[in-house]
């Protein structure tokens, strides 16, 4: 035991591996600390309740809105918009992006335009979308679609481009045709990267949703936040933020699980 480093020493060593239990404990301690500071600031009266609600007040409001059905309605409204926009965008971007990364001719066609558009902030288009589509759900779907599609296109094309060349060559020398190389090699080889890109862009889709709901909406988590601000209901704003965070965490874990299930061969 004499030559073993102490836990403190190990924690301070760069690029070291720590036991799983230590990692979990440190993570939990941080959450506890976070809540303690929150309780200290709110219950301790350091910050007036008008600006910072107590954790119990947020929970209480959450319970109330859950029981009268308002909260599920707004969560569903947000989730519906985010999923519609995200799924539409992914359905278009996956084939097009993979084609772009596979066929230089498609890349030459799309890349100049895509690289121009993807640096435009989607918020700049919100007024245009309102003018064109109105302030209904379609407008919010359009914001998410527009915000994620061009980013996804570039990410998926990178995924396809990173498939090792010799993997395709090996398939050719085993008698694969160009079509079977595309479906039997390129597609499965791209799958883990595609799932990783979906996981990242799902987070962005949530961001655009809130932007869209803050500007023009009559339901959704972004909308109730904005309404709560006008009525000084700071507890509702906190609730909306916490729920968006939790939903993001759930979708993230769902993608991790999916990645493990359908592409467990790639670690």
């Amino acid at each position: 035991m004499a030559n073993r480093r102490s836990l403190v020493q190990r924690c301070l060593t760069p690029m070291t591996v720590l036991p799983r239990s230590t990692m979990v404990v440190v993570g939990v301690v941080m959450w506890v600390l976070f809540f303690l500071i929150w309780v200290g600031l709110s219950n301790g009266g350091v910050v007036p309740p008008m600006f910072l609600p107590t954790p119990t007040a947020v929970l209480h409001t959450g319970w109330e809105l859950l029981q009268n059905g308002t909260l599920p309605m707004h969560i569903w409204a947000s989730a519906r918009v985010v999923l519609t926009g995200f799924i539409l965008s992914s359905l278009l971007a996956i084939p097009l992006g993979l084609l772009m990364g596979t066929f230089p001719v498609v890349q030459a066609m799309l890349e100049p335009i895509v690289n121009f558009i993807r640096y435009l902030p989607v918020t700049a288009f919100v007024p245009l979308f309102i003018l064109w589509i109105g302030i209904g759900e379609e407008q919010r779907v359009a914001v998410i679609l527009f915000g994620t599609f061009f980013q996804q296109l570039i990410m998926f094309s990178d995924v396809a481009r990173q498939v090792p060349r010799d993997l395709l060559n090996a398939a050719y020398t085993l008698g694969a045709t160009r079509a079977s190389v595309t479906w039997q090699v390129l597609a499965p080889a791209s799958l883990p990267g595609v799932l990783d890109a979906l996981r990242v862009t799902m987070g962005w889709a949530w961001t655009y949703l809130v932007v869209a709901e803050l500007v023009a909406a009559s339901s959704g988590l972004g909308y109730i936040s904005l309404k709560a601000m006008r009525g000084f209901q700071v507890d509702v704003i906190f609730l909306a933020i916490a729920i968006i965070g939790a939903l993001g965490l759930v979708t993230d874990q769902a993608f991790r699980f999916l990645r493990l299930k359908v592409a467990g061969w790639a670690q």
Partner: protein
Amino acid sequence: MHLSPSSSRVSAPAAAAPKLRVEGVSLHYPDGKGGHVVALDDVSFDVPEKQFAVLVGPSGCGKSSLLYLAAGLNDVTSGEILLDGKPVHGPGPDRGMVFQGYTLFPWLNVRENIAFGLKRKGIPAAERREIVDHYLDEVGLSKFADSYSRHLSGGMKQRVAIARALANDPQVLLMDEPFGALDSQTRLQMQKLLLRVWEKSHKTVLFVTHDIDEAILLGDRVLVMSARPGRIARELTVPIAHPRSMDQVMEPEFIALKRQILDLLHPTQDTEQDAE
């Protein structure tokens, strides 16, 4: 074409029709400054049926490029590559290849990897299974039939790659420094395994390496290449009978041939130095 300086032809069948013929092949590619680099310059040689031919040369001599051309994975700038007298256009299952890097399909297990080409050929499942089992046994991986490539060592991956190429029963097997990335112990084991497999099947093989010992140990014939532009400097017949073993690297014929190749590769250098 140079005549073989060695008079005792042991394993190469005399005057057999060439299985693979490389005829006046040149390969140029742009150098990015408006000109071009000559990777291969008017390379010609034949590989007779059932011969194990080895291309050896310094890095950058174009020996791997030549193999990719033979596989049809790249286009020649001029010249022709013929298989059984017919020019090759593009890749095909008649020219199997084992690559330097690991090219197992990681989403398929070992069995499915070996069956990949058989499936493309439309061979029925029962027969496929039989062939795969045979080659799994040949490379000693029967116990790993259901493993995925991330659980295999480098040597095991290359054994699967060899089994996968052989299971497809190609006319010619092209091997591009297949053991180059392996540690020396594993490399020795792989050379032994390949010798054993080849002595049973007598496939026509074109093997690329920069390791002179490997070239002599495995080859019936060694084609020594020079670099920039890549050319065949000399063809040498290996006067060592099969079956071969690792002990033969100590024998006088082996050492004499090694010295001769070293002289060709490093004409001005001290030949006592190892080529690597």
